[in-house]
């Protein structure tokens, strides 16, 4: 069932404000926003919002038990309708990315569940989900090997690149690539791409994304230190 959501057309002001296309939209995080979970965060990149929640390490069902490591489980809930195959694909991508980041060897025979609720999808939803999952894992104090941060780059027809694209940029673009980096060496962890692009475009997008990811990681550090040190 392909119901569609009626979305307000993006403010004309916002379009005009975005002078150069290499701008990361304003980010807002709310750590520990929910009470029943071990870790929770509501992250907004511009107006794109997603809520991520972590339970773990916790009890695992016997059929999913792994004797030497924790079982990482990702559930992604779309806002409209029941979960479809494309959401299962997104869950798989998230699971593969986060399994590398989480130090699962420290918690054998347990489970770490990450649940993400799509709250508002106004462009670069996948990177918002990955970033919010990482923040939720940090909020839950799950042992990790490194942090992960994602940035989306859209390539337009005239080979212009738009960083952190809005919905309109994504639909009009020739290709959209989400780059996921680790925090230690800023190496590429995951690439999710749609559409056609040349090798040169990919490399340009990669260097742009790499620069942008530094400020995302800095945002994580600031959010966590603000919460832990209780100082501005």
């Amino acid at each position: 069932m392909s119901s569609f959501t009626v979305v307000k057309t993006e403010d004309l002001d916002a379009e005009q404000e975005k002078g150069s296309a290499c701008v990361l939209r304003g980010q807002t995080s709310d750590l520990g926003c929910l009470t029943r979970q071990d870790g929770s965060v509501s992250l907004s990149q511009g107006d794109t919002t997603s809520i991520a929640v972590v339970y773990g390490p916790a009890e695992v069902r016997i059929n999913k038990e792994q004797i030497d490591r924790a079982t990482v489980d990702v559930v992604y809930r779309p806002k409209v309708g029941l979960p479809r195959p494309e959401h299962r694909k997104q869950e798989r991508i998230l699971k593969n990315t986060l399994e590398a980041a989480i130090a699962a060897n420290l918690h054998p025979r347990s489970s770490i569940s990450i649940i993400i609720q799509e709250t508002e999808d106004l462009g670069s939803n996948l990177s918002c989900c990955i970033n919010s999952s990482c923040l939720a894992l940090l909020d839950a104090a799950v042992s990790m090997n490194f942090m992960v941060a994602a940035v989306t780059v859209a390539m337009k027809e005239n080979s212009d690149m738009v960083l952190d694209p809005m919905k309109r940029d994504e639909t009009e673009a020739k290709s959209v690539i989400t780059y996921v980096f680790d925090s230690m060496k800023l190496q590429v962890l995951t690439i999710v791409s749609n559409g056609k692009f040349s090798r040169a475009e990919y490399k340009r997008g990669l260097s742009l994304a790499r620069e942008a990811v530094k400020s995302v990681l800095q945002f994580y550090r600031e959010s966590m230190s603000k919460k832990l040190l209780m100082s501005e």
Partner: protein
Amino acid sequence: MRETPLSNCEREFILNFIAQQKRLDGRNAYDYRDLRIAFGVSLGCCHVELGKTRVLAQVSCEVGEPKQTRPHDGVLYVNVELSPMACPSFEQGRQSEEGIELSRLMERCLKESRCLDMESLCIVSGEKAWHVRVDIHVLNHEGNILDCASIAAISALAHFRRPDVSVHGEEITIHTLEDRNPVPLSLHHMPLLVSFAFFSQGKFMLVDPSSKEEKVMEGKMVVGMNKHRELCTLQVTGQMLLLKEQVLRCSSIALTKVTKITELIHEALDKDKQARLKGEKHGFAMLVSGDRVTANRLPTTEVKVDTLEISDEMERSQSSSEDGESQSGNEPMEEQIVATPKESAVEILTKGVGVIGEGGTSTWLDIPQADSKQTAAKKRKHKLEKMEEDEGSSEEEEKVILK
């Protein structure tokens, strides 16, 4: 995951407390928790907080065929998702009994009350009509999901705008958002559900039970009303018998609550409308106040990439052999990182022990000096190996760990 069961002493305590006309969170028997209603940037997206219980509702629409039995009406779907996010005991997939009960109650409240004008959703009788879908996601379960969900659903329906449709003879045009402004749904009235929890065979009654009170209650009554004193839904669950006077009293209490909540909904809708008209920023991102320690805000950041560098690297990488091409993307970066190492002073404590960064000896306990220094220094050395190549605030991170 199984939920932690409520212990017997907790159960007894809560029941005794209620018998003394008191509640755990200090409310009166007929008090609601703090209610906050917020709307997102998308139309028809509503987020409601009732105390700590949080629910997100989204309304969407699509054109489809009307039901065979009602060719002049549109179709309304109501779906309540008890996502595993809300509570560790909620399982993904199969709907639990509780989920089915909630879904049914929400459906009855919205459909049987005829709050939404279904005939206005008809486009071509018998052929095309609007299918409106309300998805309710429970984000956090701290008791009384039902009331929260009904408030969210009604607010979302009132907030939603569907595309405008014009019919010229045989031709139907569904206008895009740029073409014509979207049209609100015609909502006749706002039916809201109010839950009552009963204890000691109906002797004590509480409005808006919290999660602990829900676990201890003997029976529940749900009253669906609108502010015009019209009763739409009534359901009693649990093993208890109620007197006629109790039912009537509950409905009059429900009336006062519903009137107040309807006012709140209208206020929130107005505020959102004003914000949209003035072109002010609105939506969920704006709700987070920067004052709290757990909230952080970063304004738009510009990312500067040296375009000259990229072209040089590209030429280099293109000229290199095919084998090394996959790694060349990473190599230039690594070179850059190694080229500018962090200049930090290493302090030598004793033979074979080096200290880097801030920290120092433990100020907590009176440990003999030599031991504490050695253990602290060993820890730091270990961290050094891990953080050698880490950019940014490695020192900050050390502060947090070692203090």
